[in-house]
């Protein structure tokens, strides 16, 4: 009896120590198709739903059928998109900012409050294994090979080696960073709140170019072939050459932009905070069409080959034709869509407040 009790206690202790994940997530390579090349859904109907109970961060990531659902209040859920069931969850911390970077089993993220800098969470051991005091960050971690990019809110950019977290290089942008940076091949492009955009060589931090735009920015730049499109609080979108850093286009606007634009080969789609969506020709900055939607945008847009998905704070969801702005489908949601929509295998997933994954099927 004594041994039985001991065994049970050990089993209990062992099970408590493990993360509540059913199995380790597979790590296949990311999908080769970008969403813009996928065929989108032009009409949808409700299918299954999964109640998580915690709101998602603005961008989630997926590996095959596994969705890594991170929440604003610091939970990590592993969701099987085939079954739309949670395979386990872990409380990581008390809140997250931006999107975490995952190099399984390590999750790199900035905390919403509490410790300042990079936290590294080991999903297998279910605990924070490293913390680097690099300053408060409100933007996403970026992982490029063995380099991890941390942009502190006060403007310090630090590139770390993974998994050691040894600093590779560090520079000051010179102004606050409130939006996500991006990787352009061998380069890192970072935008500051007060209009400074700079390109650094990812390898050693050498400055390629920088430009100062007289505007305020809350969105990260959009990379499109040889151009960057950067939407300002004033409503103006600036087109900047990625090689030279020269401003090449200006797309006019007068209403704040809080979600980054999206683009395809010829058009740039800009979501303004008053609910207007305007498609501009990238080559000349002329507006092709404009569509007034209901209320500000609540989540990043998702563009497919034939459909543009728009989530509004009014709990409306629109599917538009990118060609002419026609509303192909309009859906009243049960909550606010907080995270970029996810399309996978002819199914669309929306992440709604207060923490629901809603699946939609193709209605056509």
């Amino acid at each position, binding site marked *: 009896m004594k041994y039985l009790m001991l065994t049970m206690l050990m089993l209990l202790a062992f099970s408590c120590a493990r993360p509540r994940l059913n199995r380790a997530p597979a790590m296949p390579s990311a999908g080769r198709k970008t969403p813009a090349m996928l065929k989108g859904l032009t009409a949808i109907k409700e299918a299954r739903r999964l109640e998580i109970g915690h709101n998602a961060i603005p961008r989630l990531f997926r590996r095959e059928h596994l969705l890594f659902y991170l929440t*604003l*209040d610091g939970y990590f859920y592993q969701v099987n998109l085939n079954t739309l069931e949670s395979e386990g969850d872990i409380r990581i911390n008390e*809140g997250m900012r931006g999107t975490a970077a995952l190099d399984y089993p390590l999750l790199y993220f900035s905390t919403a409050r509490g410790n300042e800098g990079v936290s590294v969470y080991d999903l297998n051991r279910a605990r924070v294994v490293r913390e680097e005091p690099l300053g408060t960050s409100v933007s996403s971690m970026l992982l490029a090979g063995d380099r991890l990019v941390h942009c502190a809110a006060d403007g310090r950019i630090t590139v770390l080696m993974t998994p050691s977290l040894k600093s590779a290089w560090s520079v000051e942008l010179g102004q606050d960073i409130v939006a996500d940076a991006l990787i352009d091949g061998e380069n890192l492009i970072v935008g500051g709140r007060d209009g400074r955009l700079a390109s650094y060589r990812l390898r050693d931090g050498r400055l390629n170019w920088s430009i100062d735009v007289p505007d*305020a920015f809350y969105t990260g730049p959009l990379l499109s072939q040889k151009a960057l499109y950067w939407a300002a*609080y004033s409503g103006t979108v600036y087109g900047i050459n990625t090689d030279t850093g020269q401003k090449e286009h200006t797309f006019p606007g007068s209403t704040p932009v809080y979600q980054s634009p999206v683009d395809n080969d010829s058009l740039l789609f800009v979501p303004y905070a*008053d609910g207007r969506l305007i498609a501009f020709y990238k080559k000349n900055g002329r507006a092709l069409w404009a569509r007034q939607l209901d209320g*500000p945008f609540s989540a990043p847009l998702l563009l497919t080959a034939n459909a543009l998905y728009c989530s509004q704070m*009014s709990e409306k969801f629109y599917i538009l034709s990118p060609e002419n702005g026609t509303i192909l489908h309009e859906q009243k949601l049960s909550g*606010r869509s907080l995270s970029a929509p996810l399309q996978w295998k002819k199914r669309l997933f929306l992440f709604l407040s*207060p923490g629901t994954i809603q699946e939609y099927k193709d209605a056509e």
Partner: protein
Amino acid sequence: MKRTFILLLLLSGLLMAQSYYFGRNKVQYTRFDWQVMKTSHFDIYYYPEMEDIARKGAAFAEEAFRELQPRFNHYINRRIPLIFYSTHLHFQQTNITPGFIPEGVGGFFEFIKGRVVIPSNGNLSKFRHVIRHELVHVFMHGKVRGSLRDHRLVDGPFPPLWFTEGLAEFWSTRWDAQGEMIIKDAVLNNYELGLKNIYVVNGTFSMYKIGQHVLMYIRDHFGEDKILQILNVLWKHESFEDAFKEVLGMDYAAFDRRYLYALKKKYYPLMADHDFNSQTSRAVEETGYNFKPVYYRHGAEEAVVFVGNHSGYSSIFLKPLNAQDGEEAESEVLIKGEATSDFESFHIFDSRISINKEGVLAFSSKSGGNDVLYLYDIPGRRVIQKIELNKEGHRQLVGIYSPSWSADGRRLVFSGLSSSGYKDLYLYDLNTKALKNLTRDIYDDFDPVFTPDGRIIFASDRGAYGDEGYSNLFICDSSGARIRYLTFGRQRDTAPAISADGRLLAFTSDRQQTNNLFLIRDPLKDKKHELQQLTHAIGTIFDPAWTPEGDLLFSTFEGRRFQIRLYEDVLRKMKTLPARSVVMKPGRADGWTFPGIDSAGVQANQPYIREYTLDVAQSQVSQDPIFGTTGGAAFAFSDIMSNDQYTILVYNNARTSSDFLRSFNFAVNHISLEKKVNYAVGLFRFAGQYFNPQDAFYFEDRSGASFAISYPLSQFSRIAFSHSLSYSDKTWAFGRRRFAWLNASFLSFVHDNAIWLPTGPIEGWRFNLSIGNTYDFAFNNVNYMTGLLDFRYYQRLSLRGTYAVRLYSLFNEGKEARQFYFGGSWDLRGVPRWSLHGQRIFLLSQELRFPLIDGIGINTPFLSLGFTSIRGALFVDAGNAWNGRLEKIRGSYGFGARLPLGFLVLRWDIGKRTDFRDFDQGNFTQFFFGWDF
């Protein structure tokens, strides 16, 4: 616990039916036929008389909703109830807030049901401004609460009042002369505050404008986007200042250093070519708040008559202009306002007064549900006529402003606000009692004056730029026809005052962001007029009025005070002033309109149907060593107008499960506040163990029904009647048991016109006389009478000092008459709380109340505390509680201090007990939370 629940019940029941022990009445003079207009985002409540302005308000609201979405990057995912009243007098009758609404309140946002309540005051631009202002509150509240919800936080910091009101102003209107008045005066008189000390003006108009100015500064020096960022990060922080620091990179102290320095840089150079009015004009009245001066002469006596507030009551004053022996004369109160139902409010900010050649003063005042015109004979010091136009068949006329005499003293022109929500000019003939509506349109016509030749000059927003909130001066004939411009442009020209010979017109204008005095020579001639700017003042100028000698009386805001001053030698000074022509731009002189919401924007328009939603839900479980465990809950429901309310109280104090039904208590009340007569009906059952000194421990099970009715005679007095019928089963601990069918009736007369300082009343009187009878009509086991007299009088001795006296008596007489508790800081000081009891109580309290410490601060490295308005009191109490015959009188005397702590007052008394023969050796000390009697 039991007492708590019963108190809760009473609070939510009879008290909400306005049957407070004391207190003024919110009288429902008007029956509103409520309609609901459903637009895309709003449910707009209005009544048919104001449909036109309600449709315009709907368009303003939808426009504001569209504009605020991107500013807040937020959306309100619920329909917003927007309740419109056509006049402020109607607005003051709303039950949506239980408190009284002062004249300065332009609207409010109520958090529980998310209702926005807004009156029109006859000016469409202001109506639009207030709608936008309140919707900023709606969006801000939604944004902050939504942000907390997104992060699964139940509670967190909310922006301070300076930010919420400052932002509401910042995003709803432009910076104007009123804002400039506040900031400029503060900087140049060296009392500028900054954010660290803004609590000093918390809740005042100054705070609104300082908040707006701070946010303008943030926009100009940090970016407007930072304002939204503060709201975005607020959920992360323990305090608003922390969020402020995260976004702006500096705390309040550092911000103040920059901001206050910038203010000085901007305003100090004004001193080179602008003057304080105190340097260029003669002081007439500097005490208190003073407005709307007019000149008065009776024989050799010269005086100024004005509206002011010197002591808490707004009144009409007379002050001699030529004091004898070089001593300043005292102001005399001609008519005391806000203390009687005849003179409830003089609209001191909006309504001018006028005196004719015979010395008859014409003014308007709220009296009951409408404004009335009064004619007051100044030499005789008496009201000679009260003109109630609504009783003369003009029921649509609700508000009356700025009556002005014709030269012959037979007619009055005034600005009238009708139940449609629009303000027009009216002419009243005193001989024929005929009222003529001179203008009948959507424009705000105000400050009319008769010219010597019988025409009318007035200010109005009917000009080219009226839709932007500007006003110009106009002249028309006495029939309201042939309206033409006297001034033109994008500014607010107001308060025209014409000299007795008609050759000079003075008025105020904010052409340089501050109201200054301007003149037009020969305004009655049909020629091109020329303007002269008479003053370049730092202090803002209002309400000019001519004296026969050609001097100008005016009121001004300077050095934090609204003063009356006299600008002398105008005729001489104006000779050297440059003149420039009034330039007209005819293209814009064709009037304007605001379109109402179009029919496509209205989803439905229907009569109002009551739907009840939850206001309050509260539950509680408590342990008591004697009475055991008690658990229960209270709920309150009301309709959107809060005219109909239901309160439900349930609780149980069973000790065993078998005792559950026996110890089940409930009370259900329905309260109706819709009409002038308020009533409440209810059912109740109270069962449980009780204790009192007369009966010791006993169990009583009492069930029945209650009814209460309250009839307000005016804002200040009411008659209330309550009745209950109940069955009582009472079992004493020693075994006796009795049954009774109790019939209880009470009749009360209540009067209250007291005004308050933070610690208690300072002036006026309060009175409650109640009599009642409780008897058992089935078994005659209970039969007693109850009487209550509570009289309190406050004789003001100085601005902040008063002598207060309270006479209080209670008696219960008869079979099973209940005893009253007595003693303690609330009544007879020096006696332990509730240590006395009896069927009779008598108390006479006297207090001398005076200011003790105006401000005290404690600063430590860890904590800073500040207290203001600490008051002192000397008191003498005498009284006792007894049964049968009064054998002795107990008493006490001593000193007390009162410390205001926001919504409570900490009272501390130290003194000696006495029976008025001997005095106790030691001192007693008592602490208590509560206001002075």
